[in-house]
């Protein structure tokens, strides 16, 4: 007589957990669809508007490049790069503070994690708005905004990399009586260095994208040109600018991929 075996992929608790999530997701979706305000006339209008938009965007006004776009593109790259460098210097100590194997005081851990969460929760555009209010319009506001936004990203990944370090060498250095700055230098840094550079490159790539739009709120870079052209309804210039943004983003990605292969 064959025995009846029962096999369940998930325990009842797991099934319940998944069910709650599915239910929650569906409810959220339904509620949102019902309460969101969509104006139907605009929706019906949409295809016509899109066609109209593309007509105005073509042909691309390439003549505008020299006068309006080129220097702005360079400025964008500088904002992205300098902002990333700034973030590196700020993220490193915060990352050290947030790693619970390096900083053993929970209050400091929480404080550092709070800084990192806040930096990530506020969008770079919003940071740009804030810093334009403080420093006035221009690249200074943009650079600082990019820097502040990147602290959270770099700091969080750095803290995670630090927490995953092999504790063995650290133990050995402690046993030899090394002071803690030396332990960080010789025990932790060699282990996290590749991850650190990887994170930096990754963030630089994202920052190029971000820097291209913060100009919309006045923080320098090609976004300023974009904002001007939009306000003047010069759609052919807009399309030129969009193409240029596309180009530098792709160029940045290729650069990052190449550097990654060589160094890491």
């Amino acid at each position: 007589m064959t025995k009846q075996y029962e096999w369940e992929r998930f325990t009842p608790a797991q099934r319940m957990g998944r069910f709650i999530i599915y239910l929650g997701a569906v409810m959220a979706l339904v509620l949102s669809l019902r309460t969101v305000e969509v104006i139907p006339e605009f929706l019906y209008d949409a295809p016509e508007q899109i066609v109209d938009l593309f007509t105005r965007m073509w042909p691309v006004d390439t003549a505008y490049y020299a006068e309006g776009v080129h220097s702005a593109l360079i400025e964008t790259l500088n904002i992205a790069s300098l902002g990333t460098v700034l973030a590196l210097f700020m993220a490193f100590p915060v990352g050290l503070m947030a790693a619970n194997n390096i900083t053993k005081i929970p209050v400091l851990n929480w404080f550092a994690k709070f800084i990192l969460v806040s930096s990530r929760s506020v969008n770079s555009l919003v940071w740009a708005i804030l810093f334009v209010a403080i420093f006035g319009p221009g690249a200074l506001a943009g650079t600082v905004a990019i820097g502040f936004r990147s602290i959270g990203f770099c700091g969080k990944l750095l803290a995670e990399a630090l927490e995953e370090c092999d504790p063995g060498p650290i133990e050995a250095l402690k046993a030899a009586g090394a002071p803690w700055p030396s332990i960080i230098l010789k025990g932790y840094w060699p282990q996290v260095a590749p991850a650190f550079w990887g994170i930096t490159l990754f963030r630089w790539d994202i920052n190029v994208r971000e820097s291209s739009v913060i100009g919309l709120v006045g923080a320098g870079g090609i976004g300023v040109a974009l904002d001007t052209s939009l306000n003047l309804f010069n759609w052919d210039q807009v399309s030129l600018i969009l193409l240029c943004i596309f180009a530098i983003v792709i160029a940045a990605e290729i650069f990052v991929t190449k550097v990654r292969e060589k160094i890491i």
Partner: protein
Amino acid sequence: MTNQNNNGNGEATLRSLLIKDVVKEYVAGKPVLKGISFDVIGRSTVAIIGPSGTGKSTLLRCINRLIEPTAGEIVVAGHDMTKLSGKELRKARHYIGMVFQEFNLVERLSVIENVLCGKLGSTPVWRAWLRKYPQEDINRAFELIEKVGLGDFVTARADSLSGGQRQRVGIARAVMQNPHVIMADEPTSSLDPKTSVEIMELLNEFSAVQDVPLLINIHDVNLAKRFADRIIGMSEGHVVFDGTPDELQTSHLTEIYGGEDWLA
């Protein structure tokens, strides 16, 4: 070797390790170390044997306070380890050389940098950062690396070495500290039989040359009998045997490890 109290003699105090009633509880009410006492004076090789989980590693780490003992007195080279903290603790640790089971080298650094890590307790941080170690330290590091037979590997990265080679680097690092006591926590457990013998010989040699006591945790009883002057057997948190290898009988081993099938 029975206890010799030479506390009046300054020289002997330096090369001494006095342990009295050390207790360690990870969980309250369930002590792992239940009052360990023994003294090691002058140059000798002491092997601590005992089953896994009996507290051998805990004991070693209590000696340099990588783990905090719950109670007891530990006097190394005249310093009461349990009463030190901060800078003094680090200085005291600097004079205890430790060799680890998993070698605990900094993988991405070279052999010589790893050996020089032994000196981090007495090298200012800026020197360590800029790698401007004093010339005598560099000379000594070279000598030690030659001594352990790795003269051709001075600038090789630690993770390119075999297990036996890495342990030699670990030993060179420990000796670099010019320690008053050398401790080894299962130094041969990750190595093959031939390499294990080589490592034990190396440890004994350095102990003789530096003229310091050598404390080794080991679970290979034959290696212990072959290389040690004195064997301490631990079982269930107590010292149950303390004598020369010749005095170690089968009955003692049964008491320490339990069971008889494993005895050849």
